[in-house]
């Protein structure tokens, strides 16, 4: 539904979220760090350029989660739309509810909190969100009595941002899948009824696949959801708390068509584990995965990316069915040079893997975890899949020998093209009541692994840029900016270790231990 006068319900986010990152999703990760080596305006231009909008300020592309909320409200007949953060003032005369979603409102999530702790500088996503909330348009909206509802994957962060909650006049925080619960919260807000302060959507209120509406406008970089939830049950992950649901190819294709119609030809298949699409438990099945890719390729002429895949599924799919090479050689490589994907290593320790993520290696035993990781990295390297991999420091029950095991695994991963990013443990999932990892918990072993990751990632980032990334002539300025950042990091790499060691010495002087008693 559109309105010539303006929208009653405005859905938005700050610039770091409301951007297509030049069509390069991975550049969006730059918004999780502080500005380094470049002027702030240039950093922001590379990481989060402004989006094209229509005359009502509606962006051509918008974050997928916001698109779902928009679709729910429009289907229910509300005068609601996603509006770019620079244009919400156009709706001040009509707006009654302002809905704001984010992946990381306050940079408390990974990896933002880690960059913040290590550098002592606020990440740009936090700065940008604060700037938005304190903008004249938002302040004026609040002054006029507009109700503010916030939500998204980072909703939990408001529990640690009470000063901002109060200062900015947030009326309701919605944590979890909102499709079934958001309409009447908005209705109550429109009727000026009292709202709950905090809502957590448990399994009783999550939507079935049929209850999830199709997006009505294009999503950022053509992201479409192919499944929700994950069967692996890793204890640090919030996604495993949700029931597993597969989206039909028919619905996926319909959403891709919405993107294509808006001129967004590329597609990111979003799932916690793309190869587990209609899988037999944790064992990939070739047929549905191949059919899905065929359908995508038929629907759009653009490129394909995967949001996430598990290393165990990559190994199993290739060794059992040669599925990865079939997908890449027969379907994807004829269209593009590589595919990017996020994967989770988390730890190289078998002991810790057994405790924290016993199903992550499945169908292989947790004892084989390091071998699963190495084999999957080799398979991806051979098939032009470029993983951005995560490690987690400070998992509950982590011991120095676990970090050493991770270091040993990283040595074995040296030959494989990849980016490896260590992250500090943030309590989520079943472990959401545990302690956060802080810089004072850093140990010498962590620092060694940090440096290993930095050297590995800088080396391969140069290779990735030379071979694949940001090669389009129009993106030459972005490419130059990235080269400058890499040059800056390379030049300063030798200073990182002494700085971290100084941080460690300071910790020792104050007699703080890295580990609580376990």
């Amino acid at each position: 539904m559109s309105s010539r006068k303006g929208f009653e319900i405005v859905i938005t986010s700050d610039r770091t979220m409301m951007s297509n990152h030049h069509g390069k999703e991975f550049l969006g990760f730059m918004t999780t760090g502080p500005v380094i080596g470049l002027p702030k305006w240039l950093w922001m231009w590379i990481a989060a350029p402004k989006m094209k909008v229509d005359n009502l300020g509606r962006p051509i592309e918008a974050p997928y989660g916001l698109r779902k909320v928009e679709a729910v409200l429009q289907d229910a007949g509300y005068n609601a739309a996603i509006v770019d953060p620079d244009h919400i003032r156009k709706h001040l005369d009509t707006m009654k509810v302002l809905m704001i979603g984010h992946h990381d409102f306050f940079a408390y999530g990974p990896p933002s909190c880690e960059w913040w702790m290590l550098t002592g500088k606020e990440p740009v996503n936090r700065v940008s969100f604060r700037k938005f909330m304190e903008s004249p348009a938002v302040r004026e909206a609040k002054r006029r009595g507009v109700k503010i509802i916030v939500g998204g994957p980072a909703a939990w962060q408001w529990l640690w941002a009470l000063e901002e909650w109060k200062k900015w006049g947030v009326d309701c925080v919605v944590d979890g899948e909102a499709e079934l619960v958001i309409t009447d919260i908005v209705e109550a807000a429109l009727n000026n009824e009292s709202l709950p302060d905090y809502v957590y959507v448990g399994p009783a209120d999550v939507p079935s696949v049929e209850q999830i509406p199709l997006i009505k406008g294009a999503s950022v970089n053509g992201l479409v959801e192919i499944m929700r939830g994950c069967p692996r049950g890793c204890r640090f992950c919030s996604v495993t708390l949700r029931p597993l649901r597969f989206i039909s190819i028919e619905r996926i294709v319909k959403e891709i068509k919405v993107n294509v119609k808006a001129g967004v030809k590329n597609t990111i298949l979003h799932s916690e584990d793309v190869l587990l699409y209609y899988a037999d438990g944790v064992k990939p099945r070739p047929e549905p995965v191949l059919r899905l890719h065929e359908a995508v390729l038929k629907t759009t002429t653009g490129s394909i990316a995967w949001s996430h895949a598990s290393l165990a599924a990559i190994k199993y799919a290739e060794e059992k069915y040669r599925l990865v090479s079939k997908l890449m050689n027969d379907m994807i490589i004829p269209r593009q040079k590589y595919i990017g994907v996020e994967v989770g290593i988390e730890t190289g320790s078998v002991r810790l893997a057994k405790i924290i993520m016993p199903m992550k290696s499945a169908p292989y035993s947790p004892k084989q975890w390091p071998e699963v990781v190495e084999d999957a990295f080799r398979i991806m390297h051979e098939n032009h899949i470029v993983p951005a991999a995560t490690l987690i420091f400070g998992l509950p029950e982590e011991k120095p020998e676990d970090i050493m095991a991770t270091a040993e695994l990283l040595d074995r991963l040296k030959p494989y093209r990849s980016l490896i990013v260590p992250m500090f443990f943030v309590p989520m999932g079943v472990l959401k009541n545990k302690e956060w990892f802080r810089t004072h918990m850093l140990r010498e072993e962590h620092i060694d692994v940090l440096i290993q990751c930095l050297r590995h990632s800088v080396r391969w980032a140069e290779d990735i840029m030379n071979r694949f990334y940001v090669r389009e002539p129009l993106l030459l300025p972005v490419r130059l900016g990235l080269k400058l950042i890499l040059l800056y990091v390379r030049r300063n790499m030798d200073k990182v270790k002494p700085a971290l060691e100084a941080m460690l010495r300071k910790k020792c002087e104050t007699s703080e231990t890295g580990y609580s008693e376990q």
Partner: protein
Amino acid sequence: MPGLRIEQNSKKIVLVVCDRVSSAEATMIADEIAKKTASKGKRKVLIYVISPLGRPEYFEAIRRVIQENIGLSMSIRYSGSKPEDILELIERLGNPDVVVVGSCRNFIQALDNTGYENIVVICPGKSDTL
């Protein structure tokens, strides 16, 4: 009767919180909430918070309780800061379960004066039903 879907068919609990809640207390409160909710065969809980800490500052005290929860849908409403507020609330809700944590002597006294019995006081190391 609350109109929000997430609050429909939910177990209603009044939580009185006066200080920061320790990790042990949070676990005890979460267990108490889960137990009371499950005993009625419900999968949702609507928590009315009475706290002199104010809104949203009371979350400083109860966020651990929220973090302890995984399986229940939860809606949390701030419902006042004074003993009079809890008396009004229990009358409106009709004999709800009340859970009290922290130094809430005034609130316990106010409930005691009315002979209210459906109350659990959470103390570190023990949980007393009055």
